[in-house]
């Protein structure tokens, strides 16, 4: 009995010793990755990585980005996760702000500082970009043919009456990627004009989905024709055989998808190895697989890509139109989300009714011009586009305070509660849309 015990203890000791000895160079053990990426991507990397480092067991946990961030926050006291691996840079900003990441400088050479106008890596090294993605428009060609719709090219195309009730997007408060799309339009066109574009497009929405993947999923099935999506959703759908197409509008941002090592990672060595692996030529090549289709951040990898593969490092028009300002985006992050929800998502019926009336009046006036009608129609459009807050107000920390996670101290003044602010905005939108609809109907009556 005791001999066996001794034997076991001795064996354990040997194992321990050997594993500590090997620790420095050779990564081993369990590596836990929390990710929002689909199985297609994770399992491809998993296979490639396990082949290169057979001693490491990669454990992949799928959570959507929000749930992943929540999970890391809730489990921080006894952290068991090594890596966080997701698209939206702002999710990493939240983790960084909560001090849940640790800095690491990847050993891989040859990765540029920027893709398009967006920095690839976090300046403090808390997270690193490993693949780039841009936002654009995806459509189902069977649907477009059946409904006689032209292929869109620019964001503003989606505001055209012909697309009424055919477009879908996911709510920016639910999807970090959509948030960036909306923010890109706002930065590219300015606050007032940007919101005008956003709302004119929104008037054509068929639906606003709760998950980012809801949009490509709906376009794939043909529930709606046109979706505002991140490129890889469209490219991978295409590669899976769905009759869909995709275009990058001129105003778009190419943003990196990221990976970051979690603070107090149980297996730091393996985590660092994994980061270096996915940035290595070998890892970057995985991104080119048809079911994944993301843009590598290592420019050398494009040499192995198919002919028509978008290359943001060569095609300078891609994503360089807008100089995306991360700080501006950060300052008004929650405000933009809440504005979109209160003015668009939860008022969609009113907004669509107003938009429909405007489209009808516009068509009638084109046939039978009428100055008073035109003036009324312009007023209606302005009512729809009107914003309850200016760009300055949106960036005001006072307002942002109503939405922040936690008050820093008891003395921090929070002038209004979030629910109050939201109710105010919702009432503003509701009244404006109703008034706009009335004006447009008057204009229509004049053109009859």
């Amino acid at each position, binding site marked *: 009995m005791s001999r066996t015990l001794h034997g076991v203890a001795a064996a354990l000791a040997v194992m321990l010793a050997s594993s500590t000895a090997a620790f420095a160079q050779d990564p081993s053990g369990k590596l836990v990755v929390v990710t929002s*990426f*689909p*199985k*297609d*991507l994770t399992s491809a990397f998993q296979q490639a990585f396990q082949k290169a480092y057979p001693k490491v067991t990669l*454990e*992949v*946990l*799928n959570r959507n*980005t*929000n*749930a992943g*961030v*929540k*999970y890391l926050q*809730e*489990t921080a*006291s*006894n952290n*068991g996760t090594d890596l966080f691996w997701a698209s939206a840079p702002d*999710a990493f900003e939240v983790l960084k702000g909560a001090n849940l990441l640790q800095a690491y400088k990847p050993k891989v050479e040859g990765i540029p500082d920027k893709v398009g106008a967006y920095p690839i890596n976090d300046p403090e090294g808390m997270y690193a970009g490993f693949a780039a993605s841009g936002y654009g428009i995806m459509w*189902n060609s069977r649907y477009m043919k059946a409904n006689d719709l032209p292929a869109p090219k620019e964001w503003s195309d989606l505001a055209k009456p012909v697309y009424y009730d055919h477009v879908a997007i996911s*709510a920016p*408060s*639910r999807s970090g990627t959509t948030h960036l799309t909306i923010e890109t339009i706002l930065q590219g066109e300015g606050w007032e004009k940007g919101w005008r574009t956003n709302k004119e497009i929104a008037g054509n929405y068929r*639906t*606003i*989905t*709760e998950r980012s*993947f809801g949009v*490509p*999923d709906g376009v794939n*099935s*043909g529930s709606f024709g046109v979706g505002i999506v991140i490129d890889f*959703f469209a490219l*991978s*759908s295409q*590669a*899976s055989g769905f*009759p869909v197409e995709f275009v990058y509008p001129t105003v778009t941002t190419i943003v990196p998808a990221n990976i970051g090592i979690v603070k107090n990672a149980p297996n730091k060595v393996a985590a660092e190895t994994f980061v270096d692996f996915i940035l290595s030529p070998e890892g970057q090549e995985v991104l080119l697989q048809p*079911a994944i289709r993301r843009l590598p951040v290592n420019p050398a990898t494009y040499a192995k890509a198919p002919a028509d593969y978008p290359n943001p490092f060569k095609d300078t028009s891609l994503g360089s139109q807008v100089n995306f300002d991360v700080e501006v985006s950060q300052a008004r*992050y*929650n405000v933009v*989300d809440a504005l979109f929800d209160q003015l668009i998502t*939860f008022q969609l019926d009113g907004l669509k009714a107003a938009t429909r009336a405007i489209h009808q009046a516009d068509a009638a006036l084109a046939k039978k011009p009428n100055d008073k009608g035109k003036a009324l129609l312009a007023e209606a459009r302005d009512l729809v586009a009107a914003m309850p807050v200016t760009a300055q107000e949106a960036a005001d920390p006072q307002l942002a305070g109503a*939405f*922040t*996670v*936690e*008050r820093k101290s*008891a003395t921090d003044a*929070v002038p209004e*509660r*979030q*629910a109050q602010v*939201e*109710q105010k905005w*919702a*009432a503003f939108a*509701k009244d404006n849309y109703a008034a706009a609809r009335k004006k447009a109907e008057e204009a229509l009556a004049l053109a009859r």
Partner: protein
Amino acid sequence: MTSLALTRESIARVRPGPAVAAVLIALFLLLFLVVPVVQVIFVAFQDKTTGSFTLINFADFFRNDLFMRSFWNSFYVSAMSVVVASALALPLAYLTTRFEFRGAVLIQSLGIIPLIMPPFIGAVAMQLLFGRNGTVNLLLRDHFGISIPFMEGLNGVIFVQSIHYFPFILINLSASLKNIDRAMEESAQNLGCHGFRLFRRIVFPLAMPGYVAGASLVFIKVFDDLGTPLLLNVNDMLAPQAYLRISSIGIADPMGYVISVVLIVCSLLALWVSALAMKGKDYATVQRGGGGLARRRMKPLELVAAYAVVLLILVLVLAPHIGLTLLSFATIWSFSPFPDAFTMKHYGTVFLESGQYITNTLLYASLAALLDVVIGTAIAYLVLRTKLPGRQWLDYVAMAALAVPGVVLGIGYLRSFYDVPMPFTGQPLSGFWLILVFALAIRRLPYALRACTAALQQVSNSLEEAAENLGATKLRTISRVVVPLMSGGILAGFVTSFATAAVELSATIMLVHSQSDAPLAYGLYVYMQSAAGRGPGAALGVFAVVIVGLGTYLSHVIIERGRRERGQDH
């Protein structure tokens, strides 16, 4: 010898058994329901600036147009779903229990399947069949130039929810109908009551406990369900509003938790109202020899009509699963009435990748359902048969679980159990797979509890008294008389808990700590995040449905055989 007699005597007098059971159950509920939930929802009562207690957030709730609109929408959808679900369930339950009907067991089992609507994939299938550009509407538009807005807005939610949850009524109502004393019906007939009048005045009122149990479950479940509205992109309902707020990053807004509290309170209210409706009536039947309504033969014409009705309902309620099956064999299915081509490939993928998910699911769901029926039977017994003070609260608290959003429970478990290290391994307790079983059990306990309560309501007290008079101990009476008589209801509870736990996602997704411990719903979630995963996801969904369907069928067969052996059927 003396001591034994003494103990027995004292047991007879003080009856510590029920009290001990009550305390154990209370502890379980406290530890795995109340504490985790309170950990999360106390925010609703907290002033954001000062951290002190406040009700201002509730005032905000009632002053907010969106929340009030959501509230009424939820109410309307739930009420309408009960109506539609009743219309689906009544014919099936009545025809299969009241008449000699070939394939009654099969129909009863198929009727459960809609409850197993795997997350995500069910809604995709419904859109493909009934959506604006789904099979039905594409065909209608091609041939008749019309389309029917099945899936638009609140209509869509009512449509899907009634199909999804009508089995609650079917199961409980059927169980009740089977338990009605035949003598009642025969006496009515002897007194000249026939046909619809017999059903309306005698049969249906006697089956009320089952119907009310089912209907209240449907109401509450629809009221609290967030998956369906979210997947149909209807977000101006209460549960989705709560979920959207709780699960967005960067918003520590109390409103999400306020809505959760409102949901819990409304569910309890609905329950209280249904209890009120049942109050003061005695549904127990003494004679248990008869074993349910006499089964009658139908005239040929009636038989044809009955089969037509049953078939129509079955096709409608199984539509999501028909769609699911098509999808699992489809190559590409996009804006066309039917898939472009068919393939077996997806099953191959799932077969290679997902064995672990299936075994985990079977293990978790059956453990959870077992736990549920044990606790459910115990609570039902304590509430209906003992005079313990506060016993009603066990019922209320257990039912409140119905209204706790899965996300809230998930986060609550993380908060409560993450810092507790497990003995020996030192891993966080919340990572232990048994915690997932507890979460599933708590979430599904209300189903089992309602089924068990309804079953016990139909067992007459005098049967127990008779057993005790013949010298049986309390425990023996319960195990040999009460539980066997309740078996139909207990089975109904087990089946509903098992079937729904097998596809539960919202709590699961927060609590899965390693892939090897993940259940099927998690696997589905993973597949359904990518275009290439749709087919394999559907295939996995089909596996889920088949497994749970087979389980249900087997338990029906077993219980029917049991009846026959006890000579209750002929």
